């Protein structure tokens, strides 16, 4: 499974890419592979407040609806609109065009509590 070196990871299989005070959030290659056949994405609303460890979005495969937990606290500043017509982007490009939402970090020190790529690789075996 692909685990890019430039990201931080949550134990619940989300990644975050930080650029200044904004983080882009998605689910990992491992997560999309486990879910398979993603057919619908319910993103948070722009302007919504998300909290670390709390459900922020729902990703639905054919079989099940799965909560996606925000890795950090913050305000949602953008959601990936292309997922509404092409939810399978989460399967085909989980770290690129399949991102879920962007969040303005309320508490950047929370990033330190997330996993490094090596720690996440160890978690998923």
């Amino acid at each position: 499974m692909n685990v890019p070196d430039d990201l931080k990871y949550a134990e619940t299989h989300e990644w975050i890419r930080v650029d200044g005070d904004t983080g882009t959030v998605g689910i990992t290659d491992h997560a999309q592979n486990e879910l398979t056949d993603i057919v619908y994405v319910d993103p948070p609303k722009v302007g919504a407040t998300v909290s670390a460890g709390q459900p922020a979005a729902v990703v639905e495969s054919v079989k099940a609806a799965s909560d996606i937990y925000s890795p950090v606290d913050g305000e949602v500043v953008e959601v990936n609109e292309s997922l509404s017509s092409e939810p399978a982007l989460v399967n085909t490009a989980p770290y690129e065009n399949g991102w879920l939402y962007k969040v303005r970090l309320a508490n950047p020190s929370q990033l330190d509590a997330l996993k490094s790529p090596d720690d996440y690789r160890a978690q998923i075996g």
Partner: protein
Amino acid sequence: MEAVRRTVLFDQQKALGARCINFGGWEMPVQFTSIIDEHRAVRTACGVFDISHMGEVFVSGPKAFDWLQRMLANDLAKCPVGGGQYTFLLNDRGGVIDDLIVYRMAEDNFLLLVNAARIEEDVSWLQKHAVDGTTIDNRSDTMSALAVQGPDAPRIFRDVFQCEMPARNTFVAMEKCRGAVIAAGTGYTGETGFELFFSNALAGDIWAAILKAGAKPCGLGARDTLRLEMCYPLNGSDLSPDRTPLEAGLGIFVALDKPGFIGREALLAQKESGPPSKLVALRMTEKSPPPRAHYPVLVDGQTVGETTSGALSPSLNEGIAMAYLPPSLAKPGQTVRIDIRGRHFAAVVEKKPLYRPSSARAA
């Protein structure tokens, strides 16, 4: 808590990449590669499902016919030797203990194919009502079963067994693959196809032969979307001890003119008064998350029922569901809304089935 059970094909399926879930106490493949791919394989070519978790209960003896006529809701007199019939075990209230297929092996010998999660309950219900002159033989632990479904199934049957696939709702008992194989023209997908029942020792060879002939291994995920497109009920979801076959819209499988079967009085009374609800097929008419079981169904802002099953239909690429609604609302064309995580999405009551297969197994 009982240990999770596995079929004898578990290791072979794991080797093919099966992802497993617990289904009725069994660790079963939910998918191999993709539910959508497996679903499409069955609609356009052929798929094979391990259904060894299902129960095989033989009932035989000089009183077997008369006794089963009392135990089962459909009319066994209409099932000749070599035939299969969809029927119900009902409780005294007319509620569904199990839905099953009975195969008539001989005048006085019957095979009941029952749901995995209901084997113990069915057998104890049968034993509780048993009479002299009948033998109940639960062979679920020593038998395996496969369902091979799709337009290519007749060709696969010929390749593997060198004879023609049995016609719909009939079966043959064959000596093949160095053992006894019951091959039936039945299934749960709406496509043409067959189901095989045989002793566990044959499972590995038959599974391998079916794959070699070109069937795609499929899991319970596709089995569920396939049956839901056909509006075939799943016991435990769409059927329950608190719902009758009349409410489920399955009255044609109940012989109300047959005297003396368990549940008949309750069904006659319900027919007289009218069922309190009816199981309808629903199709989403606006873009929405896929509907799933236990979502509220609303009309004019009022909750009028809840979904019992739901999925994104891979064939239609639309959300589909079933729900029990009050009879006044259970009419094709009735618009409803389905509450999905607090948002209400438009849907419409449709005629069953929601999908008509090209290989036309549907009645």
